[in-house]
Every structure is written in structure tokens, then in C-alpha cells.
């Protein structure tokens, strides 16, 4: 077992079976606490399932997933999910304004805290009063990221968050994620875009048919 302080998430012989198919097959991997770990692979490789195991939106059929040295089944899922935040592939705005959306994550947050959350994802705090559903795709996805940041997570799970975005908003999102990683947040990013993986990753895992390639690729990135 790896040292808990340097490892955020650890998978030990983890398998997931859905409708008779092994979506993940005997995965053993360690995700470091520092940097951006990217999981790449073709569609249907099991990337999203791997990510959803990390905050217990799904549970494995075999094996153990641990967070900072503790098996997830020993942790309160509600507490875990505030420590390990997630941004989904499609933006998921809730009804109401941007402020209403952020308040779902933290009903007692002050206006200052909500503004700070928007600033951290390069959004204008002036958007707080705007109806969330009127934002552009890129803004919406960054609002979802800001909403997750309101819970002060130690780790961020990003499930192909830029797959529906054009090049420019995609790059803005990547810069934002790099900035958050530099602030000490563990980032686990799932993408099928190899070029993006090379741009953002400090470590890359390749997933294919539910199995990991033998060893992760370390990227020469600070």
C-alpha cells in the first residue's frame, strides 16, 4: 500500500460488473494527491465509472477503493462527497440564479464567498444574479465547477467537463483547473481527448476495455 499522505485515491483489484459486462476489470492504481491525474481511453472504456467510484456514486463489485488511506465504505458518503467534489460531463444547472445554484452547495455562504467562488473559475461575480440557464456553455460548466468549489473540496473529479465546449472556453477551463491544482487541490480528469490529456496532465492512466495499461505515463510538468 502506498503512503496515504502522497496518495489521494487508491484502487486495489477493483472490478465493476454491469448487466453481465465487466465495465472495470481488476483495476489497481494510485492517484497522487499532487497535480492533475488524467484518465484517458476510448468511449466505453470505463472512465466515467472509475470516476464515479471515487465519490461513491457507484460502488465496486470487487476490490477496495480508498481515499487518503481509508476505504470508502468506512467513510460517511455525505462527508466524502464534500471532500471529493465532482463536475459532470454535461452542465447541470439547477433552477434559479447563479447565486441560487451556488447556495445549493452551501446555503449559509455569504455573498463574498459566492463571489470568490466565481472569481476562482474566472467568472465575473456580476453574474451572481443572472439566471443560470442563460449562461453560455463554457460559463455554465465553470459555474458548475464554482458550485463544487463552494464545498471546499480537497479533490476534484472532472468527467469530460469540456467535451461540449469550443476551443477557447475549453482552454479557459483547462487554465482554471491547472490553477486549482497549483493551489493544492487534487484533480482527477477523465477525457478521451489525448491532446488535452497531454496539455493538462502530470500523470496519465490509459484505460481500455475496463483494464489499465501497465503503468501510468508521467508528464514532465511542474
Amino acid at each position, binding site marked *: 500500500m502506498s503512503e496515504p499522505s502522497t496518495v489521494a485515491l487508491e484502487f486495489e483489484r477493483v472490478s465493476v460488473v454491469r448487466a453481465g459486462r465487466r465495465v472495470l476489470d481488476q483495476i489497481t492504481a494510485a492517484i497522487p494527491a499532487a497535480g492533475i491525474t488524467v484518465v484517458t481511453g476510448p468511449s466505453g472504456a470505463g472512465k466515467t465509472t472509475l470516476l464515479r467510484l471515487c465519490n461513491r*456514486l457507484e460502488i465496486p463489485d470487487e476490490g477496495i477503493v480508498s481515499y487518503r488511506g481509508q476505504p470508502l465504505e468506512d467513510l460517511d458518503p*455525505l462527508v466524502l462527497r464534500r471532500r471529493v467534489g465532482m463536475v459532470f460531463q454535461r452542465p447541470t444547472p439547477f*433552477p434559479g440564479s447563479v447565486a441560487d445554484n451556488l447556495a*445549493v452547495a452551501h446555503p449559509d455562504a455569504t455573498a463574498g464567498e459566492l463571489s470568490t467562488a466565481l472569481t476562482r473559475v474566472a467568472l465575473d461575480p456580476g453574474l451572481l444574479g443572472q439566471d443560470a440557464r442563460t449562461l453560455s456553455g463554457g460559463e455554465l460548466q465553470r459555474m458548475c465547477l464554482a*458550485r463544487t468549489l463552494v464545498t471546499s473540496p480537497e479533490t476534484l473529479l472532472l468527467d469530460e467537463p469540456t467535451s461540449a465546449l469550443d476551443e477557447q472556453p475549453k482552454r479557459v477551463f483547462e487554465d482554471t483547473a491547472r490553477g486549482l491544482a497549483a493551489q493544492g487541490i487534487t484533480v482527477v480528469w477523465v477525457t478521451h481527448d489525448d491532446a488535452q490529456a497531454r496539455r493538462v496532465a502530470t500523470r496519465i492512466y490509459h484505460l481500455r476495455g475496463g483494464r489499465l495499461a501497465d503503468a501510468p505515463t508521467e508528464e514532465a510538468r511542474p
Partner: protein
Amino acid sequence: MNITVSWLGLAVSLLLVAVAAGISWWQRLGLQRQILIAAARALAQLLLVGAALTLVISPGRSIWWSWLWVAAMVGYASVVARRRAPEVPHLLSLALASFTAAAVVTLGVLFGLHVFPLTGRTLVPIAGMMVGNSMTATVLAGRRLTDELRDKRDEVEARLALGQPSRQAATPYVRAALRAALTPQIETTKATGLVFLPGAMTGLILAGTAPLQAVLVQAVVMFLVLAATATTTVVIALGLIRRLFTHDHRLIYLPTPAGQ
């Protein structure tokens, strides 16, 4: 004045069924057979029920026979609800629980507080009103909530991923389902008397009851139906939430029903 319908009168009223079938034939709707079967079936069912009710509520018969009748109605209505919405998980047990809860609340108020005397003649029809009217709302609430949680799975999981407990994450969808299920009953209640004369009141007036007395009975029945639909739908919705989420706050897989 007591108005009664003779067997000859019943036979003559079949002319009205012939009118409906005739319109179907004239407009080539192809529904003649279904109309005739529906009318014959309804008549047979009503005659059977009438005969059974005569036995159950006849003077001197123990009230327990009436309670048995109510239990059978609750059981049968639960089976029908399950059949109408097979895509809603665990609907049979939930409907049983919800009708029972509604029976406790409504019959408790009406008989416990002596609005009506507790006899077979009052218990059976009032329980029938309660079950019959809340069944549609039950199916509507169960179906709407299941659809909402399946179709908005991303949104629900986004709430769960923010650390909300499943009950809290489901609250907006529970509210939407309850509103959808209760609104038709509220609209019906509002329109009563102005747009249409409800069945119980019409029946009483035809049977010779003074209109004011018929109105009072009808008002009580309307309030009974309102409370029953509210109780059944909330029990269904909250019960369903417990079945659709795991104890560790995950939304279970909800398959899309066939044909969608």
C-alpha cells in the same frame, strides 16, 4: 319522494348505450364492440357489487364484514395501481401502505369525530370514495416521481455529489410530482357546483334526499377526497424515495419503460 329505477327503466336506459354505439358506427370509429362490452361489464360488476353490498350492509350484520370489504377494496386498488404503472418500483406495497394511511386519516376523522355514524351503510361507500378517487393520484404521483428521477438523473446526482442527503436531493422532484398529482383534484374541487354536479350529490338528490342535505354530504365527500389524495400521494412519494435511493445515498438504476 323516493325515486326508484325499475328493471324496465334500466332496460330502457340501454338506449343511451345504443346512442353511443350508433355514433361510433356512424363516424366509423370501430368502437361499437368496446362500448357494448364496457357497458355490459359495468352493469354486471355493479349488479354483483350491489348483491354483495346488500349482504354486507344489511341490518344486523356485523360491522366486521364491512371492514373486510374495505380491506379487499384497498388490496384490489393496490393491484390495479401496480398494473397501471408497472414502471414504478415496489408500487404494490407502497400503494397498500398509502391507501391504509389515507383510510386511517380520513375514516378516523369522519367516524372518530362522529361526522357520520359508523355503520356498514356509511363505511363501505365512504371508503370506496376514498380509495377510488385517490387511486388515480397515486398512480400519477408514483409515475411522475419515477420519471423525474430517471430523466433528471444528472441533476439529481449533481445534488448528491454536493453532499446532499438523498431525501434532500429528491425534494424538488417530490414537490413536482405531488403538485402534478394534487392539482387535478384541487381544480375539480374548485369547479364543483359551478361546472358540474358531483356524483354523490346527484345520486342523493335522485334518491330523494333534500338538496341541502345532499350538498352537505357532498362537501364532506369532497374534503375526504382531498385529504385522501394528499395523504396517499405523500406516502407514495416519500416511500418511493426510500426505495429509489440506497442507504448510502445513491440513486438506483431506473430503466426507461418500453415504448419510450
